[in-house]
């Protein structure tokens, strides 16, 4: 990032001394942990409240906006069979009533301030975020702190949100071919690990949740010590930390024991093949190869492999499948960015009349070629430049920066590691790619979902 006028920020030790002056409650006292360079011009600072709440600040005055993210270390992996989808349902309930604000107040106050408030849940985390005009920051802090500990859970809200989530499931899964196929893939690729069930949950489980389930989940997972707050954008750091101290400082550290570590997934020894018949105009192939975790040293090489195979219109498989052979309308690949080992997903959207067997043979041939020959120097150059471009685009707004910081903090335990990742990509060699492809992209390690046309 290029230099910009440096924002005024006092020395963190002085800042902390000021903020802690006269504060007796241990939970409300700040500790400065460290700062990290965030590109060439910005500094990411890490603070911790006595109750365990981690706060990361990034002052960036390039636009008069601020982004406030709260990342909880709870996702669908922390659920159990019969109660799947609870983390996601809970995300919905967090927009409900609190002891200080009646139902509807949260959204009304946010929108009146011009803030966009939303949330997302996945396997390893739940994230609540607001992008707002800079003057709205005190409101964001007050409302987020309030719902972290004062949520009111009653039958009408839980009943209504269960219906909303059931409708969301129909929208994203039951009536969506890709959604159904992905659910089938993870359900069959994993036998023991909680990644096998969908984050939105099985419909039967969604219908069955009680207020008691929700209260227990809240007590267990929603506490300052299980959360990271990221504040990015145009704000006064001292005032922001003072507001955080005021509103979060009275909250207790944690109310329940750490959740158990999920069972490790046993190794897969042979390909698993499943079929899904749906009212769809064209056949599709979805493949999932067991892949390393997001923080695994092999992951950067696999990301490069993914770019070489699927990254944009100059990639090998786009060229082969969509332009030269005209077998598919589109192809795409991605690696699940999970704390534990996930899947390298590959999609092939076949054209009408094209055979899935031919497409699979082409894919296997190209994977073998990459494993034996590796990427060319031109492909490595293209890939690195494209990843740099994507990275820079993700940093364009305050919201984008906060999202990257929160994600890396939650999944890789270091909010500043986003820059290390770019450096890691630059260090990947052709041999690294060959080795990673040979190790992970083997047919015996994959699960295949064949999506077939249902005769009308």
């Amino acid at each position, binding site marked *: 990032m290029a230099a910009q006028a440096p924002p005024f920020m006092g020395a963190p030790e002085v800042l902390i001394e000021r903020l802690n002056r006269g504060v007796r409650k241990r939970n409300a006292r700040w500790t400065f942990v460290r700062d990290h360079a965030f590109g060439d011009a910005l500094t990411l600072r890490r603070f911790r409240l006595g109750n365990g709440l981690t706060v990361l600040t990034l002052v960036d005055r*390039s636009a008069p*906006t601020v982004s406030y993210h709260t990342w909880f270390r709870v996702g669908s992996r922390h659920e159990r069979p019969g109660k799947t989808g609870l983390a996601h349902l809970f995300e919905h309930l967090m927009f409900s009533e609190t002891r200080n604000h009646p*139902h*509807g107040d949260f959204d009304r106050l946010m929108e009146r301030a*011009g803030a966009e408030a939303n949330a997302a849940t996945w396997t390893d985390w739940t994230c609540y975020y607001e992008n707002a005009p800079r003057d709205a920051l005190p409101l964001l802090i007050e409302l987020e702190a309030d719902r972290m500990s004062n949520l009111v859970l009653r039958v009408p809200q839980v009943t209504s949100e269960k219906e*909303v989530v059931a409708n969301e499931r129909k*929208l994203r899964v039951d009536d969506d071919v890709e959604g159904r196929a992905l659910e089938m893939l993870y359900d069959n690729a994993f036998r023991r690990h909680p990644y096998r069930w969908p984050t939105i949950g099985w419909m039967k489980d969604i219908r069955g949740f009680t207020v008691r389930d929700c209260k227990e989940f809240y007590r267990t997972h929603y506490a300052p010590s299980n959360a990271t707050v990221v504040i990015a954008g145009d704000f006064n750091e001292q005032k922001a930390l003072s507001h955080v101290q005021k509103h979060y400082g009275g909250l207790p550290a944690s109310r329940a024991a750490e959740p158990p570590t999920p069972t490790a997934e046993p190794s897969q020894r042979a390909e698993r093949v499943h079929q899904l018949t749906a009212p769809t105009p064209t056949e599709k192939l979805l493949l999932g190869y067991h892949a390393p975790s997001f923080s695994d040293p092999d992951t950067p090489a696999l990301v490069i492999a993914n770019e070489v195979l699927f990254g944009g219109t100059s990639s090998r498989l786009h060229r082969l499948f969509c332009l030269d052979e005209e077998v598919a309308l589109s192809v795409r690949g991605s690696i699940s960015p999970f704390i534990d080992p996930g899947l390298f997903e590959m999609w092939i959207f076949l054209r009408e009349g094209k055979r899935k067997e031919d497409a699979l043979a082409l894919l296997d041939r190209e994977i073998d070629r990459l494993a034996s020959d590796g990427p060319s120097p031109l492909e490595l150059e293209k890939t690195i*430049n494209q990843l740099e*471009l994507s990275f820079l685009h993700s940093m364009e707004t305050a919201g984008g920066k906060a999202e990257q910081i929160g994600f890396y903090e939650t999944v890789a335990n270091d909010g500043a590691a986003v820059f290390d990742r770019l450096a890691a990509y630059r260090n990947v060699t052709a041999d690294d790619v060959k080795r990673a492809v040979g190790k992970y992209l083997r047919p015996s390690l994959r699960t295949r979902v064949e999506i077939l046309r249902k005769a009308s």
Partner: protein
Amino acid sequence: MSIFVESSDVLPLVDLEIALPVGSLQDPAGQEGLAQLTGHLMRRGPRGLSQERFEDRLASLGARMSVEVSMRSTRVRATVLRRNLEPLLALLADVVWQPALRGSDFSKLKRRAAAALTSRLDDDQALGAVCFREALFGEHPYGRTLSGDTDSLARIGIQQVKDFYDRNIAKGAFLVGVAGDVADTEVRSLIASHFPKARRAKKKRSDVPATRSRRGRHVVIVDKPERTQTQLLIGTLGARTRDRNLFPLLVSNTAFGGTFSGPLMQQVRGVRGWSYGAYSRLLHSTQRDAWYMSTAPAAEYSADCAALQLELLEHWVGGGTKNTDLRFAQRYLINSHCFDRDTASKRLEARLDLELLDIPRSYVEKYDQLVARVTKQQADEATRARISDKDLIIVVVATASEVASSFERLPGVRSVEIVPFDRT
């Protein structure tokens, strides 16, 4: 030369755009999809470079390029790492003014366009949106799809594409926009050395006839098997861009269905949990474009949801907007406006839109005042003048056998048409 520059050194990135005032409204009748095919064929690269070498060149520069065709514009956009700005600029100019337009690429592109039409059948939201515009606008050009249909694509050959290019793009007007890590003087000098001398577009007040609504309430069911959930669009004509009612209607619509806490979302989702989303949208163009509500209720209560929405609509049009809701909408629109300009590329888009879409300059420069000065009386009058609760198109993507009878019973419905989802 019309060059618009938004400098920002926040990131070492530059966005570039060549905007051409030509779009699908220029498609000859029966050749719908021609403007889009032309744009996409240009995207396959300039003369002297095979498509493969062109794509490699783009990717190795750390650049991406797209051609987006709308009703009234073709926008060739690129984004690039700052260090590679000049070579990308030259490549972009060649794509627009020296396109290869190869017959072999065209054949493949046409097959791809046909495959994309087939693939769209998987997307219920897209099916509903296409059907809604067709039903609302009928034969009017606003009812055409950008991508055409199987029959219209079959009528287009490479010669039609070349003619379209020669007539509308090769010597036509254009604007250039640049946003990001570049100084105004530097980029003007680079553009002068790579681009042809610019031609300005003549301002045209209106390029299409006025849109007209069909009398009464009409239901179209897009029949698709095994739908547990439906896509529901209910709407009518909205406003013109240069409509004196536009800002009052913008505020009024925001109060009704433009936010999460508005009555539409609260009644459909908050109270009943019937749909994940429930919003109303106001579109505007040179002639009156669409206004519509969109929801996605389960099949078993889709008609109930439609009935509720009709009731809310009648209450809004007939009873007006509460003062508190109006003030809330005004604050929301003004306070959130900063997100329309928080990056250099968004500020650039706004400036290009002004020029290209004949948007009054005051809409951008005096946005806050225009929103703030809307009174309840103006908002209510604009709503009554522009939004009809009697002349409505109701489109539902659903399994017809499960919903048809309940939709027939909706109040005021004059006709129910069932169309197969894969009719094209």
